[in-house]
């Protein structure tokens, strides 16, 4: 059996290019140009899935993006497996492997179909009502089973091997949708000389014209007209035509996101090509031409395979040469289904009857009868039969009192339905435009705009082809004019052979069955029936947003494209309110499911975040350093020797610094050059410290607060010249400190003449610390007298090192004699290597950030952001001495004087010595007065830093403790899961309290 439902001719598929593919392991063939859905239908396959809740057999319902049933997983290999694709949008390629979802063990026999028999218990809010007790069963029993049973395909567990790209684009006019309205709009915009982007989600542009054999435009067939227009657009160098490209998100100020699928339709994607491309388009003007979607009729058992939308069947016939069946009943409330019936009839398909719910029939009723088709008006489907595919249709006539009298059974193998058309408002609504409800036609339409866009064609409620083209052209012209281009005016298209799809019905249809026992589906993907929605209203839900969440209607991956209007009408009926009084749920992006890949794009792996490396990075890596991430920086953490543990390496590095000398890369410190005639005044105001009298060549440890008085950052500042300061900040604080400074400079002290420049990346900083630091650098430095008298502690000098200009700071973050050599970053590695050789010759070694932390903690030097947390004043952090109390103002002065900050009982920095010297406390651990505090007693502080100190031979810790400085000698406790740890409160300076080692 091969493509027995394919007509011998017709359609736009390439019959000379057969394509072999597999569906659920079964080998099938189709043609190039087929979607998976059209190829399956050509092979007589309607059953493609099981429904979400009841596991009912489901077939292909639509021919487009709105498909709720035919969800498949397409796999190229273990890593390239995409679930939840709509078979109606998937193009087949040679060798494609597709699988149906949500069935076990097979489509034809699904063990969970018993849910359908149990359906009386699967009512609205079923999960909420049933799985309430016992609570622990939810996570251990219910949820895993529900999730396993209600699968929507499986995401692959391997990393995505494909590449995704991103492109920013600007245009005068973006046209979304390339059906008749969109093509006319793009044509008008192009003729005005506008830069145009035209996108369409399908493989081929043309929209409804591709499946309409009857219409002529300007004397040509509709298909030929569209082909010519597409050619003209494609040849214009001002127009970008994008097929397989879904506009999925409309953001503020005409920023529209497009997902272009580049290789998914290819049998062998070229390795050079990305799989998808994200287009981020900023359009001056937008034309929305997204068309309309057909709606199902809500009658009992409207969900069997073989039941599909009438216009979808027409598309399969005319575009793909595929018949949905051989004996096709048509049920409709809209004229467009007659077109499908007439085309099928002409193609030799038996059409037993058209059942038109409208009492008077429609515009084509007479034509259908003239063609020999039985038409029953005022008739509706009351039920269907057939196990895995529809086999017969029951119908009856609607009586004057609204009841239905059963008439007959019509055997068939397919049933088409049309409830009318819903304008596709997603893009307009996402743009925050206001919808309006048109009472006469029972439709929501675009109302007031929020962005520079206009809708044209069916998405704007215009259904007649001639009017669609005229409106599309006018929209394109209007958009070009609004974008500032000269235009030629509007245009009228001569159209013949078009039928306007008039007529519709909303909500559930009447029937003669027991309403408690039948299922008439509204939301096919989430298995929500008319009954469920009525029940939700009976249970007290009034807002459509609540009805939606309680019944889950419209919450599936199709976002209710085919179901929302029917659900709304049913809810409105049950509430006895007009539709607009019940409201419409929100349209959210993305329009159709969009891959995570396109969002992650190139931001993965090494490119997820920028990595900042210092100039000695490669040297440190070669030296065997382990690195730690500090913000975006990679910093050398410690330098283990062969077989050395981290603990041993850090101990050795600390001892070496204290005994001889160590070399440390401090380049990541933030650096800001503060320059200008008012530079000193600016520093004086922005820091808590006094700066006016700092001599040129001297340094000061600066503390910066916010106006609330809390410590914001710290760092050593050197005065390079009367009008120039070299400011250092914490590694993580550099950007915010610069922003903080700029804020006051630009908005508060506009009188000051100061220029701020970030120089973090410009200087490499090599710290040389230890008793032999001077000896280490002396032979390399030129032009600076390093003697104690000439270059005291906390001074800065300009000179050269190995001929390279440098700013040499004498300062210490270890408590030892120390220097920090600043050289232009490009020389960083060379100078490092030279200094390192000297250090090693003197028995020293390089040390990393871990040793740096231990060494500074031994001295009680704080790290802002570790020992402080944004609620700590300078005094509380133990650096109150830095505050220039006589200054009339500085940032934080008034904040520090607030009564609440002066109250006793606030925390203060102290040292903690564990009673057991081997125990190292956990940073962040709470501190209590009692070893076993009563429940709900509060902690009096927390541990901020804790290390093992090799030099002291014991653990050390810093902590913020309430009234800490008055507790020296007190025993406190650090409760931990294994029991409380007893600690003694001590001075935060553990090593060299007198400071003699700083200035030997």
């Amino acid at each position: 059996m091969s493509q027995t439902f394919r007509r011998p001719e017709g359609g736009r598929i390439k019959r000379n290019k057969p394509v072999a593919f597999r569906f659920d392991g079964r080998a099938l063939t189709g043609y190039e140009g087929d979607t998976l859905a059209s190829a399956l239908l050509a092979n007589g396959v309607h059953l493609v899935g099981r429904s979400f809740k009841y596991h009912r057999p489901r077939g292909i319902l639509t021919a487009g993006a709105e498909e709720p049933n035919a969800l498949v997983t397409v796999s190229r290999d273990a890593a390239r497996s995409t679930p939840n694709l709509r078979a109606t949008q998937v193009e087949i390629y040679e060798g494609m492997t597709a699988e149906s979802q949500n069935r076990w063990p097979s489509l034809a026999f699904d063990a969970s179909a018993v849910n359908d028999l149990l359906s009386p218990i699967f009512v609205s809010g079923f999960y909420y009502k049933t799985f309430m007790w016992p609570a622990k069963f939810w996570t251990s029993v219910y949820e895993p089973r529900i999730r396993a049973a209600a699968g929507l395909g499986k995401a692959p567990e391997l990393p995505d091997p494909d590449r995704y790209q991103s492109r920013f684009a600007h245009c005068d006019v973006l046209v979304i949708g390339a059906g008749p309205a969109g093509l006319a709009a793009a044509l008008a915009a192009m003729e005005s000389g506008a830069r145009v982007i035209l996108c369409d989600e399908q493989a081929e542009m043309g929209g409804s014209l591709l499946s309409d054999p009857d219409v002529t435009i300007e004397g040509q067939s509709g298909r030929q007209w569209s082909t010519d227009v597409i050619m003209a657009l494609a040849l214009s160098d001002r127009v970008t035509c994008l097929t397989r490209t879904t506009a999925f998100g409309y953001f503020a100020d005409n920023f529209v996101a497009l997902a272009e699928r580049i290789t998914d339709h290819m049998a062998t994607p070229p390795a050079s090509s990305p799989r998808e491309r994200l287009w981020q388009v900023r359009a001056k003007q937008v034309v929305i031409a997204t068309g309309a979607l057909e709606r199902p009729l809500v009658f009992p058992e409207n969900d069997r395979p073989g039941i599909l939308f009438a216009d979808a069947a027409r598309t399969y016939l005319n575009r793909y040469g595929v018949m949905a069946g051989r004996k096709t009943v048509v049920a409709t409330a809209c004229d467009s289904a007659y077109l499908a019936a007439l085309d099928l009839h002409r193609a030799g398909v038996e059409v037993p009857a058209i059942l038109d719910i409208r009492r008077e029939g429609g515009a084509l009723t007479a034509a259908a009868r003239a063609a020999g088709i039985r038409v029953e008006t005022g008739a509706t489907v009351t039920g269907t039969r057939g196990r895995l595919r529809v086999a017969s249709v029951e119908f009856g006539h609607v009586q004057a009192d609204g009841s239905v009298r059963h008439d007959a059974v019509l055997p068939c193998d397919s049933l088409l339905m049309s409830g009318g058309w819903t304008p596709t408002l997603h893009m307009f609504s996402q743009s925050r435009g206001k919808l309006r409800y048109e009472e006469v036609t029972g439709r929501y339409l675009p109302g007031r705009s929020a962005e520079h866009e206009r809708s044209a064609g069916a998405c704007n409620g215009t259904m007649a082809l001639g009017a669609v083209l005229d409106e599309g052209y006018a929209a394109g012209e209007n958009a070009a004019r609004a974008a500032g281009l000269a235009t030629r005016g509007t245009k009228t298209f001569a159209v013949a052979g078009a039928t306007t799809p008039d007529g519709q019905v909303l909500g559930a249809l009447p029937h003669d069955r027991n309403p408690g026992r039948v299922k008439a589906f509204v939301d096919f993907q989430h298995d929500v029936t008319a009954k469920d929605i009525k029940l939700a209203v009976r249970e007290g839900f009034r807002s459509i947003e609540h009805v939606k969440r309680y019944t889950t209607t419209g919450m599936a991956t199709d976002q209710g494209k085919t179901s929302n209007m029917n659900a709304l009408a049913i809810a409105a009926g049950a509430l006895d309110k007009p539709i607009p009084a019940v409201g419409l749920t929100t349209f959210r992006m993305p329009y159709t499911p969009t891959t995570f890949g396109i969002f992650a794009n190139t931001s993965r792996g090494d490119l997820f975040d920028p990595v900042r490396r210092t100039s000695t990075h490669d040297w440190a890596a070669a030296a065997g350093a382990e690195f730690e991430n500090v913000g975006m920086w990679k910093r050398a953490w410690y330098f283990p020797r062969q077989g050395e543990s981290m603990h041993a390496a850090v101990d050795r590095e600390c001892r070496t610094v204290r005994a001889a000398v160590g070399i440390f890369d401090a380049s990541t410190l933030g650096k800001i050059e503060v320059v200008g005639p008012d530079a000193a005044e600016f520093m004086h105001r922005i820091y808590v410290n006094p700066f006016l009298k700092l001599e040129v060549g001297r340094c000061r440890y600066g503390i910066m607060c916010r106006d609330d008085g809390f410590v914001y950052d710290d760092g050593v500042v050197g005065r390079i010249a009367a009008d120039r300061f070299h400011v250092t900040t914490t590694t993580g604080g550099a950007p915010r400190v610069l922003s903080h400074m700029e804020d006051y400079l630009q908005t508060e002290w506009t009188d000051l003449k100061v220029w701020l420049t970030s120089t973090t990346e410009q200087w490499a900083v090599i710290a040389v610390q230890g008793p032999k630091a001077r000896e280490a650098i002396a032979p390399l430095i030129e032009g600076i007298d390093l003697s104690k008298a000439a270059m005291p502690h906390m001074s800065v000098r300009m000179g050269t090192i190995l001929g390279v200009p440098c700013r040499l700071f004498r300062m210490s973050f270890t408590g030892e004699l120390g220097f920090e050599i600043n050289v232009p970053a490009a020389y960083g590695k060379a100078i490092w290597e030279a200094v390192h050789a000297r250090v090693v010759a003197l028995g020293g070694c390089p040390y990393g950030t871990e040793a740096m932390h231990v060494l500074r903690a031994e001295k009680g030097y704080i790290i802002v952001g570790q020992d402080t947390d944004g609620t700590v004043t300078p005094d509380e952090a133990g650096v109150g001495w830095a505050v220039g109390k006589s200054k009339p103002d500085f940032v934080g002065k008034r904040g520090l004087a607030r009564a609440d900050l002066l109250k006793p009982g606030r925390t203060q920095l102290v040292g903690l010595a564990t009673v057991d010297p081997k125990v190292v406390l956990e940073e962040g651990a709470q501190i209590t007065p009692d070893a076993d505090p009563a429940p709900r007693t509060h902690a009096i502080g927390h541990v901020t830093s804790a290390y093992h100190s090799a030099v002291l031979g014991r653990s050390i810790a810093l902590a913020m403790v309430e009234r800490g400085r008055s507790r020296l000698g007190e025993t406190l406790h650090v409760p931990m899961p294994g029991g409380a740890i007893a600690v003694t409160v001590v001075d935060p300076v553990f090593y060299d309290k007198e400071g003699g080692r700083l200035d030997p």
Partner: protein
Amino acid sequence: MLLITCPICGPRPEIEFRNMGEAHIARPTPEGTSDDDMAAFLYLRSNPKGLIAERWRHVHGCARFFNAVRHTVTDKFVTVYEVGAPKPDLAALAADLAADLAAREAGR
């Protein structure tokens, strides 16, 4: 993504900017400011539904601070102006917006 007009650089995408909080909140002098006034300066903001005058910074552009009036419901920027310029009459701007909206409604 919003298009924000920097008074210096012109229209640029939102990601180049940083919101720096409400504008026209004067920094008190240390002398003669009560604790309550200081708390208001540090912590109290108007948070309106409607127009608000804000500080913005074109941080990934010219790096300049400027002020802007933005509608907190629609996110639309109504006007931008330089630091130091007087606060626009928000009520008058809101009335202009309402009149414009009414005109567009009538024009439909």
